[in-house]
């Protein structure tokens, strides 16, 4: 694999100070502040190939954003090595910084009081983009995201979704080879999320860009990524394809029946599977290997309008993974990746 990102034993520790409650404790803390070391990242190793679109998943405080900050050279690690596009990120070489972009959903990088067009112009100067290429790329991105009318409006007057689209335009103007996205859809409505998904999928396929995405929304992941890395408590818990997450960490499937009438609860309870009845709709949780055997039996003698057999939702699996922590730790072999 042609590794664009290669990380070995990357660790980041912070010293944090504890602030005890009360006036006396506050006065005491002027002279002695108790502190402890927090391990935000505990020796993470991985490689990412050119053109991969990977998702970094994990609960709050898992170390996802710290990992992105290390890969983009914002902070320096306590231990370990990393190379992104052949560069050590925290050396902050201009040649490196010209080849990637970082978009943070919770931080605004456009000039707040000015139209985005002014930020784009500044971006052209900073990244030394040739004027013809700049105009071509800007027009293409603006067209793709449908934000042509917004570029001359002050950023402070835009909605969150509109602003995020313009942030993406700014980030992509210099045509980066690697794009780090830190929760880009946070706070966006479904329509705006969907628009960003389509745009990112299109731009990644067209430019063969390597994208690392951190998100809490499984819809982002399902729509865009083939490979997911689950981080909890600063360590990688799972690294593999999305399909493999489902196969490996769920033993059940969800069978949903739409019946003509509301059924008798006891009738389904007798089948011995966990079930939930909502009006004429019945949801059963059945072991994967038994589906083929038991489904005919379930359908027999019942007036069924529709039936569906689905995997357990990704959100549920990943949430369970977060909860189980190390208990579910499993690193899939390289060949299992998408």
């Amino acid at each position, binding site marked *: 694999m042609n590794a664009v990102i290669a990380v070995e034993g990357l660790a980041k520790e*912070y010293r944090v100070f504890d602030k005890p409650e009360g006036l006396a404790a506050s006065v005491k803390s002027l002279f002695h502040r108790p502190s402890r070391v927090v391990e935000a990242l505990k020796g993470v190793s991985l490689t990412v190939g050119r053109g991969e679109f990977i998702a970094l998943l994990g609960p709050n405080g898992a170390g996802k954003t710290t990992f992105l900050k290390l890969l983009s050279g*914002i*902070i*320096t690690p306590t231990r370990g090595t990393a190379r992104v596009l052949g560069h050590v990120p925290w050396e*902050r070489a*201009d040649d490196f910084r010209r080849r990637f972009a970082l978009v943070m959903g919770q*931080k605004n990088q456009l000039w707040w009081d*000015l139209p985005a067009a002014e930020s784009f112009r*500044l971006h052209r100067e900073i990244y030394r983009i040739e004027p013809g290429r700049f105009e071509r790329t800007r027009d293409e991105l603006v067209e793709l995201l449908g934000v042509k009318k917004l570029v001359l409006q*002050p950023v402070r007057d835009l909605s969150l979704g509109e602003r995020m689209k313009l942030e993406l335009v700014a980030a992509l103007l210099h045509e980066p080879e690697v794009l780090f996205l830190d929760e880009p859809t946070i706070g966006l409505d479904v329509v705006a999320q969907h628009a960003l998904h389509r745009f990112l999928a299109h731009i990644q396929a067209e430019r063969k860009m390597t994208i690392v995405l951190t998100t809490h929304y499984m819809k982002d992941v399902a729509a865009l990524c083939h490979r997911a890395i689950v981080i909890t408590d600063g360590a990688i818990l799972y690294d593999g394809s999305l399909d493999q997450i489902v196969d490996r960490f769920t033993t059940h499937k969800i069978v949903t029946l739409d019946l003509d009438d509301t059924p008798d609860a006891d009738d389904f309870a007798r089948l011995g599977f966990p079930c939930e009845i909502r009006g004429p709709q019945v949801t059963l949780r059945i072991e994967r290997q038994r589906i083929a055997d038991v489904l005919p039996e379930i359908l027999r003698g019942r007036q069924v309008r529709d039936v569906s057999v689905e995997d357990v939702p990704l959100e549920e699996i990943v949430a369970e993974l977060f909860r189980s922590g190390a208990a579910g730790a499993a690193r899939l072999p390289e060949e299992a990746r998408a």
Partner: protein
Amino acid sequence: MDRYLSIFLTFARACLVRDMTFRANFVLECLTSMGWMSMNLAFYLLVFQFTPEIGKGTGWTREPFFAFVATGLIINSIVQALFMPSAEELTEMVRTGGLDGVLVQPLDAQFLLSMHRVDFSSFANGIVGVGLLGWALSRMDHAPPAAAWLLYPLLILCGVAILYSLVIMLAAATILLGRNQSLYDFWFYLTNFSRYPAEIYAGPWGGPLRALCTFVIPILLVVNVPARVIALPLEGQAWGLVWLVVTAAIVSLVVSRIVFQTALAKYRSASS
């Protein structure tokens, strides 16, 4: 270098566009700072009603002293316009993690962080300073020699460089501490020493203070040397001061660069 100039001009243009968007605020800022400056000038006029000279035999009579004040106005307006808005914003950027966005850009972070905001209203004081300098020089008994006219802009630049270095080191403290809201206050207290002729720092307390503010934190050289060169006769001691301020400017820039880079390497970034 052309690229940095071009980027600076783009920043300046964007700031001007922003200032023009909030015109009333811009006019108010100009009026506020000019009002403050007028009160200071009125105070000095009052002082000269009671004494012909600041310190006996120092040469700082009314017109040379106003040339001194004008020089201070010019230097401070340059620093306030070009560097202070960015430095003040840095505190907020460190606290909120906005600095992250700067560090990923392919540009010298010190340049970007110290010059991305331009406060055009602060130039108003500088323009008045130039006018005041012209008025003071036209009323003096002797005209400054050609060498003084040539040296004056260079020494102004040296003064700006020393103050800039100070601002950058205070900004670096912001990065290391995570929060430094007294940055502007501290800068104001320090630069207060540069507002008066060095000769007033005399006696058992004044002497050590003068040495400290000349050789350790060379704040006393900032206005004194250019003002002395343009307003007082260019004699032997003045040449020594010229070399001293040039050296102090270079050393200050180098030290501030090292301090700033060290602070950036220790940047922790705010939680997201």
